[in-house]
């Protein structure tokens, strides 16, 4: 327990100290929600853009923390031989992954509180929200995005992983239908967008928090497939040093 707690402290300490990670995990989602929630310039097809934006930005926050932040930090830890050194302690792979998971969950909890608070301040009013279902989607989404982040981190050099993670973040942000409905995209891109974990998570969150009336079965299937496939790919291909 002492080893696990020690590693959780170390993980959270690194998150606090890495300003660029905090910018991605907290700054960008808050900025996007604050800006587009105040200025009605997005083609959201809703009376109030905040109702469309909050679920999407929550999905973006999950992607930021569990894919970009976790993946970049882990990639650099691999480059700096931090993982190799930790592998020579009694910590063990299981507790290392547990520590990283708990650290991600802590950051996501802070993100959710801040984003929901900002959303409410901007007039968001969730209707008969199913918070448990939303939480389940966040957990499944975290597995999916963490799998993607670790699959990149475990195979690419630190700097290449940094670029790849940020590039993928931008692509999934645009194709995931987080800032505008996917129907606005050309048919081909719309189809690609619907297959992304970002859109699947945003779709489930919109339905569970806003009773949007979506049929989310397909989204659950898409998100579940990513959540099973990507951690498996990461576990199979991850190189510790």
């Amino acid at each position, binding site marked *: 327990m*002492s*080893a696990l*707690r*020690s*590693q959780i*402290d*170390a993980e959270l*300490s*690194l998150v606090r*100290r*890495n300003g660029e990670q905090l910018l991605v995990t907290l700054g960008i989602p808050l900025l996007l929600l604050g800006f587009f929630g105040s200025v009605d310039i997005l083609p959201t097809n809703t009376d109030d853009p905040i109702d469309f934006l909050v679920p999407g930005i929550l999905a973006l926050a999950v992607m930021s923390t569990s894919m970009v932040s976790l993946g970049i930090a882990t990639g*650099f*830890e691999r480059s*700096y*031989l*931090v993982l*190799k*050194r*930790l*592998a*020579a*302690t*009694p*910590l*063990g792979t299981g507790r290392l992954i547990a520590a990283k998971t708990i650290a991600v969950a802590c950051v996501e909890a802070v993100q959710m509180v801040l984003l929901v608070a900002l959303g409410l301040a901007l007039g968001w009013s969730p209707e008969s929200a199913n918070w448990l279902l939303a939480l389940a989607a966040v957990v499944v989404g975290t597995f999916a995005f963490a799998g993607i982040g670790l699959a990149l981190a475990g195979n690419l050099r630190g700097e290449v992983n940094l670029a790849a993670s940020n590039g993928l973040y931008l692509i999934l942000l645009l194709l995931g239908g987080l800032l505008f409905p996917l129907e606005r995209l050309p048919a081909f891109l719309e189809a690609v967008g619907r297959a992304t974990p970002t859109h699947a998570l945003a779709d489930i969150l919109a339905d569970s928090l806003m009773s949007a009336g979506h049929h989310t079965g397909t989204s659950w299937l898409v998100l579940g497939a990513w959540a099973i496939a990507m951690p498996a790919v990461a576990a199979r291909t991850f190189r510790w*040093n």
Partner: protein
Amino acid sequence: MTAVEVANLSVHYGPLRAVDDVSFGAAFGEVTAVLGPNGAGKTSTIETCEGFRRPTSGAVRVLGLDPWAQRTTLHREVGVMLQDGGVYPSARVGETVAQYCRLYNRSVSPTELVDRVGLGSRVTSTWRRLSGGEKQRLSLALALAAKPRVAFLDEPTSGVDVNGRDDVRGIIRDLASDGCAVILATHELDEAERVADRVVLFNRGKIVADSTLANLRSARTTVRFRSSTTLDTAALARHIGLDVSANDDEFMVSFTATDSSMASDLVSRISVWLGSNALPLHDLNVGGERLEDIFRMLTKGQGS
């Protein structure tokens, strides 16, 4: 029980035989220096002992455990110092040492450990702000946090200043006198000569020497002297019947010591030859071979 037992170990990377059927042991309370040119197989061997690599064939036991299959158990009592890296650049000295003390949970005081490696004044510094020598000291502290029974130390004095080297040597000796088996990988032969009890010398994936330092040095005798750079080494070699090596104005003759009178006879023949050729003789020295000379002789043809 021997602390480290390596039996017929081979490690292959595709067609490359990095380690080819080697066997050696390391005892508690001794410093075993693992030496060899780059690519000789020492890193692959040590990483196999540390549990980072799976042997292609052969067996490795550290504290009686299989390092690959029983890693987590083994790592409770083994200290590892990597040659470089191992710490996140933004991590601070004090908190990193405290983290590792808690990971090993062996009742080691982080404050005392930081002081012991001479980083007491750098507790709040981040890894990226440390000098090369300070980074080595921090890496050593992380290995000591395990209160190890076996310590694998990779280049512990690399980049460390002269005073710091004395401190590191003191720590290594203390570890061994506390009963720890220290396995020291280094390119610095002078360092190995100062602290090692035993030397295991690798070349091209094989062990070419495995002995106590004293035995290794006494196996051959060396006569060293200075003279004029115009000395004809081939002519002298013909006269004494042994190879003569030259480095500027320093000359060396090395031979297997089978008879104690052989050295004095050789010195006499060399001085007579030099006198008859009107060449000076300075700084004459007869003794056991230096580790550096042994290393050169046994690893000839492979750069270090």
